[in-house]
Structure formats: C-alpha cells, structure tokens
C-alpha cells in the first residue's frame, strides 16, 4: 500500500490532540493521576463533551464511555471526520439516552488522541510529544481519570455509566472501583477480561504499526514521518473482527469492485478488499498510531477478577448498583459467554442485574448500529432506573 500523505484531516486530527474542539479540564502537579504502573502522571488534561442539562440535585448525569477508537464526540459532528457522532442514534433528545431528561458526559480516554493526554500530546517537561515515553496505562487508569473529571463537575453519584466494548470494560471498572458513585451500569458487548484470542488480534495490530519503517520507534511526530500503512493494516485486521461472517457475506459476497473480471494483480478486485482499504485509510486520517498501541494494551491488561483475588464476584460484593448487561448473538469478539460470566458473578454477589442477549447478525459492531430491541432495552432499563432513583422528567 502506498504511504499515506498527510491530509487536511490529518492536520486537524493533530491539532485536536492538544487543543481539542471540546471542553478540557487540566489537572496540575497538585492533582497527579496515580497509574497502575506505579508512576504519577502530571500535569494532564481530559477533553470531554456534555449534552443536556444537569438537574438541580445533580442526580441525572450519565457517563458514556467510548470504545477503542471512539472519542468524546458521541452525539455531534466529529470535528476531524465531519461525520455524525458515533452514537448519535442513541444519545439525543427523545432518544434512548434522552438528553431532554439526562445530562450526558463523554470524555476522551486517557491515552487517546482527541484532547485527553496521551502519547501524541505534548510532554511539557521535555517540550516534545510524549511518544513512547508515555507510561503504559490501564482501563482502571482511564476510569480514575474520568472519576477526577466527574468530581471536578461536582457530581457525587452518576445516574448511569454506559459503554460498549472497551467502554463496557470501563463501565465494569467504574462499578467495581466506585460502587457508591454509580447508580446504574450498562456494560454492552464486553468482557471482564480480554481473551487470549483478543490479545492475539491486538498484537497483530501493534506489530503492523511497529513494522512500518515510518514508525521510527514511536518518535514519528518529531521526525515528521507517519506510519500510516502499518496503522491502516492494523485497522483492516481489527475491522474484520468487528463484523460477522454473515454480515460480510451479505454485504460483499465475492462481488468485484468496479470491474467486470479479475485483473490478475493484487489490486482490490473484490469489494470486500476495497471496503477494508477504505476503512484503513480513513482511520489513519483521524487516529494516532501510538495511541492505538497504548489503548489496545490497556484492553489486553484488563482482568477484573485478577484485581479481586481471582474471583470476579468479589469485584461486586455488596454493590447497590443496578446492572443491565447486554450482548449480541453474532459478536465473536465479545461473545455472549463473556457476558454470562459477568452476570453469574453479579448474581453471586446478589446484585440487581438484568441481562439481555440481542439477536443480530451484525457482529460486534451491532452495539453502534440501529438495533430496535437493543434500543428498547436501553430505554426501558434507564426508565426503570429513573423511577427507582426518583428522577423527574425534565
């Protein structure tokens, strides 16, 4: 694949890494972030968006946690891609996560590249981008950073924490680390630990990035190169895991792309090849390769049971949080058996838990798509919780 030229979009993405088009909170040396790796991160900043209005007693706040390559622009046009927010069908006035009723917060994760401190941010101590000097972060570190943001906003208890995939891992971590701060938790299409298969996929992606000669041991931002080919390959491979065999077959089959017959070359003859190349190249426009390394690593390290003596139920002992666990039938990245492990642990802790498996052939990506039963469940669960919490309609 040809090297990816730095486009206008790419420049915009670079700009958003330090000066995002959303609010930011900056924590100075007086408030260091204690990381699992043992280091203190300071100073650092968190970029976030909010939607709707916080009510008088601050009881209607919902934190939405984004997935691996998502960002804080959950329900507005993305300033880099100019596309709709990644959950614009779910979050908004009258939608299941109703911004007429709830105050929605979404922050860019620690290690990200849309304004929260990460490897592409400026390391002020050395006056150059962090690159590989950035400490390896975990899902728990991401949640600690979010908790500092929530405290900063003066919210003592979130009405709900909601997220899919890596966002779902954050939801579980929130419920385990800060049970008193989470009234309701909705972990979707996720697991309490990353499986060996998923770690394997992530490793292929990282190796693709690091094998790109333009990666320059992570210092590409200083050398003015960009390992776009490697990141595109990483994204292409990951994208396959987000879909299902049935969805790929239905969408593309063996159809040829803009041609009548095979070319007997390595061009993208098949539609599915063309689609993956497009996904890879558009991802490269907006995402930072080092961020990809750090965030996939955070997912790999995630093992909630291991943090609680090897027994997952111990993570939820005495919890009062109301849980709604959701999975999708064709998700092979985070299959329903992963969701069931969470549900069994919650039952063992006598937690208040609902569990719904949604019938869908759209694979892991289903949680980002318009699945009526999924939306009805979200709306119904939040409505029930709102009644239990005594939330009035705004």
């Amino acid at each position, binding site marked *: 694949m040809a090297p990816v030229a730095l486009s206008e979009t790419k420049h915009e993405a670079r700009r958003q890494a330090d000066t995002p088009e959303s609010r930011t909170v900056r924590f100075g040396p007086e408030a260091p972030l204690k990381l699992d790796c043992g280091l203190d991160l300071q100073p650092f900043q968190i970029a976030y968006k909010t939607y709707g209005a916080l009510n008088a007693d601050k009881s209607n706040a919902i934190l939405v946690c984004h997935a691996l390559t998502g960002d804080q622009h959950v329900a507005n046009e993305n300033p880099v891609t100019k596309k709709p927010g990644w959950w614009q069908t779910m979050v908004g006035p009258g939608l299941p996560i109703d911004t007429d009723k709830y105050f929605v917060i979404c922050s860019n994760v620690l290690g990200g590249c849309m304004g929260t401190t990460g490897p592409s941010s400026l390391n002020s101590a050395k006056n150059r981008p962090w690159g590989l000097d950035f400490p390896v972060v975990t899902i728990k570190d991401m949640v600690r950073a979010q908790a500092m943001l929530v405290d900063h906003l003066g919210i003592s208890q979130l009405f709900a924490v909601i997220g899919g995939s890596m966002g779902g891992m954050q939801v579980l971590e929130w419920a385990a680390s800060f049970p008193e701060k989470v009234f309701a938790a909705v972990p979707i299409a996720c697991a309490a630990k990353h499986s060996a298969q998923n770690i394997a996929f992530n490793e292929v992606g990282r190796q693709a990035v690091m094998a790109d000669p333009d990666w320059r041991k992570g210092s590409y931002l200083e050398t003015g190169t960009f390992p776009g080919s490697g990141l595109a390959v990483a994204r292409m491979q990951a994208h396959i895991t987000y879909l299902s065999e049935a969805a790929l077959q239905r969408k593309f089959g063996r159809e040829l792309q803009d041609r009548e017959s095979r070319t007997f070359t390595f061009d993208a003859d098949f539609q599915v090849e063309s689609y993956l190349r497009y996904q890879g190249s558009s991802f490269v426009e907006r995402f930072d390769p080092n961020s990809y390394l750090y965030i996939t690593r955070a997912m790999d390290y995630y093992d909630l049971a291991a943090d609680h003596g090897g027994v997952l139920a111990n993570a939820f002992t005495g919890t009062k949080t*109301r849980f*709604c*666990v959701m999975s999708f039938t064709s998700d092979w990245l985070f299959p329903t058996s992963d969701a069931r492990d969470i*549900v*069994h642990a919650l*039952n*063992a*802790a*006598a937690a*208040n*838990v*609902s*569990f*719904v*498996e*949604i*019938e869908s052939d759209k694979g892991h990506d289903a949680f980002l798509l318009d699945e009526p*039963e999924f939306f*009805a*469940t979200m*709306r*119904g*669960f939040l*409505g*029930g*919780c709102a*009644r239990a919490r005594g939330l009035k309609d705004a």
Partner: protein
Amino acid sequence: MQKSTKVSARQGAPVSLDDIEAAPITLPQADRPDHVLISEMVAPGARVLDVGCGDGQLLRLLISKKGVDGRGIELSQSGVNNSVAHGLSVIQGDADTDLDNYPDGAFDYVILSQTLQATRRPKKVMENLLRIGRHAIVSVPNFGHWRLRYHLVLFGRMPVTPTLPESWYETQNIHLCTIRDFVDLCDEIGAKMERAEALDPSGQPVRVNAPWWFWNLFGAQAIFLLKRA
C-alpha cells in the same frame, strides 16, 4: 421458561369441551388468580426472585401491589427482553443451572410459578430455592386432578386441559407430578409447609378445609409457601 397456563390455552391451543366448561370468566388484563394468591403470600417490600418469570406479569403485580424489590430469571429471550424493556430486572437464564450461582439467603422469597414441571432436575431446583430464599413459593399443575385421571383411564390418552394445554409431543413439561407427589418431595428435602392452597380449573381457590386426597383429586394446581425446616 415455557409454562402451561390457562392463558396460553386461550391464545391458540386447540379448545376441547373441557376448556369450554372450565373457561374462567375473567376480564381482559385482569391479574391471574394464582398470581393474586401468590402476591398475598409475599410480605410488602420483600426481596423477591421470580424463577421462570415469563414476560414479568407476576413481577409487575408484586412491584405495584407489594412494593417488592423484584428480580427474575427467564429462559425465553423474548420474555427477558420484554421484561427489561419494561424496567424489570430480569436475566436470561436456566433454573436448572443458573440458581447455583446465587448465594445463600439472597432473597426473602424465591418464586417458582408453574415452572417446576419444566425443569430437568426438580429436586435440585427445589433445594436451590430453599437455599437462596428465606421462603419459597411454588405453584405446580396437579397431574392427579380427576379430569386428567379420567382422560387417561377412559381414553388411554395423555390429557390436554386448561392447566396443561399442550399435546404430549409439544409440551415443555418433563417432570409432571401430583399434589401428593409434591408434598412427598417437600418432606424429602426437609421443606416446612407454611401455607398451601389448591386452585380449581378456573383458578379459584378450593375454599374447603379438605384432606390431601380431596385436593389431589379436585385441585387443578396448588400453591405452596415453603420454608427451610
């Protein structure tokens, strides 16, 4: 969990003469009489687990009338999704396997309404109910009812009735018992019977202080409030 109830009989199973004779006169949307009776056995504000909760009808009754903290387990995905979309706390699961995951004494009442006969290991399920709940409320269709005996003896066929509406080859019920059988099981696992009610085919309580043999003959179903001995 698929249940055998009058409701499903009315909704499409073949109607026999027996059904017409026995069809209860109830207003649409009315609470099922067996549900009303169960709700009378539950203390207000209690923690309740309904095993095999279907679409959550009983849970909704218990929450609205008794203000309970209600949860459910249901085998059918449509029942679960419908319940959760209505704000109930329900998980998709199997009474035979998933009750093992609940800790001792997690609930004040564990309810098994018209579900025991569809489980693979009824005894194990019963032991789990008594372990998880301080009380268990169990309702079972009575295979000893005279109408069923009459069908079997006279026609030599597996009976189809309002309480057991499916044909033998379609039914989910694999462990049917009579009221007397159930009472024996309670004795065997050391369950103390706090209250017992027999319902006639229309779902009305058999309001006579009758001996077991009478209930076993005239009760279409029975509801028991049990406690660990």
